[in-house]
């Protein structure tokens, strides 16, 4: 877990998006010109939004770096710390990406059970042996419920390996 100042994160987000918005503004020059009389062209509306969003990123930046900035002031308290459990987030993120990447190869049944098992095993507040046992059972039962709802009732074509797509 890392602790960061709220203001640091806001400034990072602000500067990141400021740069990104400038890049997108440059990109609008590649968009199609108007072909219809009166139609302002494909770039017109995105440019309006980009200018609007850029304006507010600049305001946000000045709000955060200077307390003397009084044009658009905020009473918000951003002195606090923000805790980010980066290891847990990265774990969830990576296994979710793996799940979706291997879904077609391994199949819905095994992959959903393994995915649920890997999330549940650390969260059951039991000793390791019991946790392994209960998370295996829970993940298999849950997979069957998801299969029933999404595949059997809603007829969504998930890649299956051994369970049937139709039962009625």
């Amino acid at each position, binding site marked *: 877990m890392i602790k960061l100042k*709220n203001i640091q*994160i806001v400034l990072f987000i602000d500067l990141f998006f400021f740069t990104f918005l400038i890049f997108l503004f440059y990109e609008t020059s590649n968009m199609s010109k108007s*072909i219809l009389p009166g139609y*302002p062209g494909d770039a017109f509306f995105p440019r309006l939004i980009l200018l609007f*969003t850029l304006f507010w990123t600049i305001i946000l930046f000045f709000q955060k770096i200077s307390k003397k900035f009084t044009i*658009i002031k*905020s009473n918000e308290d951003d002195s606090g710390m923000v805790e980010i459990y980066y290891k847990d987030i990265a774990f969830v993120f990576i296994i979710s990406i793996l799940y979706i990447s291997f879904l077609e190869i391994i199949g819905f049944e095994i992959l959903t059970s393994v995915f649920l098992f890997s999330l549940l095993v650390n*969260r059951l507040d039991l000793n390791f042996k019991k946790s392994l046992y209960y998370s295996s059972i829970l993940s298999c039962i849950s997979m069957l419920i998801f299969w029933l709802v999404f595949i059997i009732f809603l007829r969504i074509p998930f890649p299956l390996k051994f369970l049937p797509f139709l039962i009625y």
Partner: protein
Amino acid sequence: MDILFNLPNFISSVFSITTVLIIISGVLLGILLGALPGFGSAQSLAILFPLTFVMSTSDSLIFLLAVYSAAEYGGSIPAILIKTPGTPANAISILDGYTMAQKGEPKRALQVSLVSGVFGGLTSTIIFIISGTTLAYFGLKFGPGEMFALGIFGLSIIGTFFGKNIAKGFFATGLGMLLATVGTSGFGGMRFVFDKAFLMDGIPLVVIVIGLLACPEAFKLLVDSKNEKKIKNKISFKKIDKGFQLSFIKRLLPTWIRCSLLGTLIGAIPGAGAAIGSMIAYTQEKKWSKLTNKFGTGIDEGIAAPETANNAVVAGTLIPTLALGIPGSGAAAILIGLMISKGVVPGPFLFVDEKDLISLIFGGLIVTNLFLLFIGFFATNLFSKVTSISKKRLGCFVMVLIIIGTYSYSNYGAHVIMSLILGFMAYIFIKVNIPAIPIVLGFVMSPIIEENLNRALTIHNGDLTQVMFRPITLTILFLALVTIIYGIKTKR
């Protein structure tokens, strides 16, 4: 108005077996999800949104409306029992609800909340149909220029009132609008696709809704709750606690009427939402009531006021959403998105071209509230058990539901990855008080605004001044400016 006079016909049209089953499942899922701390109505709708892919337009709308109404009540369950509101709108119910539960009357607190919510829901539904029809009548006289201005006005309220800082609110709104410009322009050109196939058709609404509303909650449940201590639900229902009595009706009726009107009015203002509605209803009722000094000590009026307003907001939100196509909240944005995805265009023409759908929504809301009353009344004890579910374990299932739900949309893995990236972004945004709901609202509003602006410009040969300086357009744009200046002056 003709819809109101034909009320019995509309209610009977709702009573087909399929519709009744859809309403019952919507109510049950809504109460369950709403009762989970952190899961508001928008989050509940987001997570259940994929279930509507296979439903018809009317069934899916009724299902989501049932979830929406029930989630607003469901949020009061943990607020009353464990002092943890399910939705921000139920936070104020803690004051009297939790106090009453601590005094040994949790059943009474829950049932007063339920009956008040249902009264608010029913009253606001009737107001919705009268005012919605009237508003749509005026809306029909609007041209594309005026509709463009109305969209800008809606955005000005959303940016100003969502979150604690106006700059963050508008920054988020702008990001949402920008996300909507990805893909085809509608005139054959491509925008911000960077030669990536998965961006050619734009970002689907389901990715935005699940990514920005449901995904951050899943991250919170999985990651943040991992280190939290388990809350033990020690509340038990005693025999002395007789629950809601019919004799309460006469005493609570003035509170219900006042707060229903207040809740509907606040719901009709885009961006205000149920949280503001219940807060204002509680403070106003405290002033109007004869029991001013007893508020906060566990009295029925203290629960009835916020809960009536909270549920009245649901139909109130539908007024600008359906009559003008301006969503007032995250939940309304999902409803608009659902309608657009099913080929129905929200706006004044809806009340002319889709009278049957409007009737069904009207009847559906009435029946939903009646089922909510019935189910909520007899299953009070059962739903109270939801508060003891472990958040971190629940997070595992929510995450699977998110992935499967997003994948279901078009069986495309890139959409799931987009949802996860947006979800992580929204998770960080929420931690630093950048609201995620304006991103969703901006995303939904952007195409409506752009389409009307382009149409108006084409009519006026590309002259923007002719579009802007029409009397009604100018008045609405002036109101938008006043809203922003008000937000700046009050240092939000």
